[in-house]
């Protein structure tokens, strides 16, 4: 079992992936898969670029890993670090590939499948293998990333909604905002 310090180190790498998503106007969620203390896969949201609402960070990373020769059975000794609690779809996907455990940043009140809306990771009688999931690692950083996305004016939109008067709220987060 990784120490809290090790977990935060991997979560920082997941946040880097979320930052990359933010830079390309994707909902900023990022993840890394860790096997034997090493990052063996990375992903970030690609739903806008692909016009496919299922291209979440976790699914993208799993696809790339399998395509580049990572063995399906090795997920059983692999842990996922993801900035936002996996949605119900991803929570089920992770169960079906038999992930060992999931560490996440902030919860996902709208879609969360590892506590917030459903408990896909632990409920009995579903496909795959149940797994533990624990949140709260760089939670505020993950939330701040999402808020930066949602205050942004969308320049690609044909009729941009007025977001100019939105302000980035950070008072409730225990971190400094750099932008």
């Amino acid at each position, binding site marked *: 079992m990784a120490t809290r310090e090790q977990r935060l180190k991997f979560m920082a790498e997941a946040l880097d992936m979320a930052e990359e998503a933010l830079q390309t*106007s994707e*909902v900023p969620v990022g993840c890394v898969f860790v096997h034997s203390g090493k990052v063996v896969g990375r992903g970030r949201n690609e*739903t*806008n670029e*692909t*016009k*496919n*609402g*299922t291209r979440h960070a976790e*699914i993208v990373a*799993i*696809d790339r890993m*399998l395509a580049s020769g990572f063995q*399906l059975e090795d997920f059983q000794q692999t842990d996922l670090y993801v900035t936002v609690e996996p*949605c*119900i*779809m*991803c*929570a*089920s*996907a992770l169960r*079906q*590939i038999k992930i060992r455990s999931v560490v996440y940043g902030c919860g996902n009140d*709208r*879609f969360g*499948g590892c506590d917030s*809306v*459903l408990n*896909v990771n632990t*409920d009995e*009688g*579903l*496909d795959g293998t149940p797994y533990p999931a624990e949140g709260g690692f760089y939670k505020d950083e993950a939330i701040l990333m999402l808020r930066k*996305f*949602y205050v942004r004016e*969308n320049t*690609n*939109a*044909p009729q*941009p*909604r007025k977001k100019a008067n939105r302000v980035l709220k950070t008072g409730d987060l225990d971190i400094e905002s750099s932008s």
Partner: protein
Amino acid sequence: MSSTSFEITRIPTPDEQRALTTETVYTTTISPQKTSQLLSFIAKHLPKLTGIEHVKRVRKTSTFLQVILCQTSAITEEELLRILKDSEWTLGEICQVPDTPPITADQFSKWKDVWPVAFRPPAQNRVEITEEERKYIAGQILRSEQEGVVMCQPKTHAVVASATAQDHPLRHAAMCCIGKVADLELARNDSLVPAKRMHDEPSDTAGYLCEGLDVFAITEPCVMCCMALVHSRIGRLFFINAASGGGISYYGMHARKGLNHHFSVFQCSMPEKSDA
């Protein structure tokens, strides 16, 4: 005309399948002439009813009226007695009332025996499949048997995409079909000048490209696939075989409180060629 045995049954939502649950209220018993006096006393001195707007305030018996004073969750019995002390009203029975509104006739018939309630069935209870649609649905189910998951435009009945599962742990047929719809959209956008793009939406609303589509499958989609259908904003799902670990059977994911999109689900029998 249609003597076939092709059946289409709408799968109830979790709310429609909900069993009766109750909360408790303080009541008092009065003669009918006193009603308006009591109601104005209640309005002035007692906490409003919250979250049980479907519950009727008054229950009639052959000789008297039983009236809800307030919810037991709102104030303690001691507080209530103190408020009633200088009035002409007395505390009667503590009664159970249904804590959610009935949305099916069956629920209404059970709920109202506990305490009188209003019944306003929501619009999606009245979905009807027309004879023309039955043929279309039968035809697409038969297609699904050959081609995997099929997605169609409900108005024109045109097939948008179909896909079978691939040899990959996550590429189930529904996931692949959603991917095909996305690829078709990307290809179409590339071939159009920007000003004419059909779906040139704000980028934070992308991923809704299956919005309103009818989805046909032989087997109920798993939890992952059902959530993918929620994310993709489909309109209706039709399948033949339910699955115990499926997203509809296990979680009622088509109409779950807390999820931001709901869709209708129909379980069908296997159609004959003559049904299509």
